[in-house]
């Protein structure tokens, strides 16, 4: 049985899709079977970031409506053979996502894959709540600024109340992925510092992804940043986050930073 991860944030534009693709590719490069699922019906992007937009035939809504089989809708990545994409529909309405349909699809994906990573749409409406509903683990993507942090806090509240796990009284495993982090700006006070964000959200830190042109470059060529340039700073940060997802305990660092800064971040742990 695979693990279902939801990548969520509340706020839009913080890096959910980028992180879904990057973590998916990082996990798959280790030989594990990974499927990334786009839940953003009507505004799909994951296919672009994965570079699969010209190969989409069937999508999540087709599968839920019984118009296509799951195996027909899954797109295998050309670079990593254990990485698959289940695209969202760009034309359909998100009302077509039914709770029962989503549950069935997630259950069959769980049987076939080691990791099912669901890319949640922004917001707290139907699409977002359905994406998180069957998750075992949640990755909360947050930028170091106040509106993103407050929206993430809201999402954490929903994760603790609206998921199947929460309804069964089980604790929901949640991780914070801090993206677009610029240590120089945080030091100047233009951005929230890592400690401030952790103090407000009080969930464990999965990783800090530095603000970088490499991320933009990678999505423009249609590749997850962990496949486009594995040596870049954001890619290395995502690789480390993927290792933490597997259960490894690593000190959180920002790759490409000077040593002096490492010291401050070493051994960081959230409450």
């Amino acid at each position, binding site marked *: 049985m695979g693990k279902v991860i939801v990548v969520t944030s509340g706020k839009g534009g913080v890096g959910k899709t980028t992180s879904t693709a990057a973590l998916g590719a990082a996990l798959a490069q280790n030989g594990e079977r990974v499927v990334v699922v786009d839940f953003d019906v009507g505004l799909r992007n994951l296919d672009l970031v994965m570079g699969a937009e010209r190969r989409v035939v069937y999508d999540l809504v087709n599968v839920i409506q019984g118009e296509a089989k799951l195996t027909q809708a899954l797109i295998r990545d050309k670079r990593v053979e254990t990485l698959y994409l289940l695209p969202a529909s760009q034309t359909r309405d998100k009302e077509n996502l039914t709770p029962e349909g989503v549950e069935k699809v997630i259950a069959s994906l769980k049987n076939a894959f080691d990791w099912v990573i669901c890319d949640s749409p922004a917001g707290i409406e139907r699409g977002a709540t359905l994406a998180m509903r069957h998750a075992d683990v949640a990755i909360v993507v947050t930028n170091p600024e*106040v509106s993103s942090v*407050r*929206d993430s*806090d*809201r999402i954490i*509240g*929903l994760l*603790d109340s609206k998921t199947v796990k929460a309804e069964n009284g089980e604790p929901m495993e949640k991780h914070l992925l801090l993206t677009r982090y610029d240590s120089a700006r945080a030091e100047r006070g233009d951005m929230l510092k890592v400690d401030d964000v952790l103090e*407000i959200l*009080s969930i464990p830190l999965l990783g800090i992804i530095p603000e970088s042109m490499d991320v933009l470059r990678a999505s423009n060529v249609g590749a997850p940043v962990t496949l486009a340039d594995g040596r870049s700073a954001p890619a290395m940060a995502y690789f480390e986050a993927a290792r933490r997802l597997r259960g490894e305990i690593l000190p959180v660092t920002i790759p490409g930073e000077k040593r002096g800064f490492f010291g401050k971040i070493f051994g960081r742990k959230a409450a």
Partner: protein
Amino acid sequence: MNDVLTQSRPIRLKGRSFLALALTPELPFDDWLVQLDALASRSAGFFLRRPIVLDVQGLELERAQLRDLVSQLGMRNVRIMGIEGARSSLLGPDLPPAMADGRPASDVEIPATDETQKTAPAESVVSPAAPLPRAMSSIVISQPVRSGQSLLYPEGDVTIVGSVASGAEVVAGGSIHVYGALRGRVMAGTMGNSSARIFCRKLEAELIAIDGFYLTAEDMEPALRGKAVQIWLEGETIKAEALS
């Protein structure tokens, strides 16, 4: 026999609160009873099987008058479980026991609304037996209150071991204790308890209120921001001071 006696468990006494109707009679009682009869005739059985508390606060009464009223009500099938607001000299073993510390609850809908202003019973939460001191109930929340979450506890005190996030809301009938940063909105003493207080480890609240009197973040003393603070009500003014 002795064995049974020595091993028997102690009698258990527990406090419990119930909802009762508080009926407020007015002098002269004869006229008031006529109005009550009018209400009862429009909606037979309104008082049947309901626990009723008689609120005689502020009435100049003789003991005989009160006893007469209770028996008059008894003849109308209105059974009085207790009397609120009466001097202890008024009450005796032949009258229902005194009730104290009633807390207001929401109004009860009366079957017919016209001409019934005077007999309008207000619902009231009544503590069980008067001689027992009433303990305010409380709850402890051991996780942070997140943005968008709303915690309502009109029964008493709320203790939160964690933070109250910006955009979160805590409403308590009693005091509110936050062992963490208070960034959201908190309202203490909402059931009319002006002695309720708010305590927090770190004050960054958006709004605080006690018994309906409130302060927004803008009106709060800037020097107290980020500090451990207690907040209370003095008359109609919200006071706050740092906890050293």
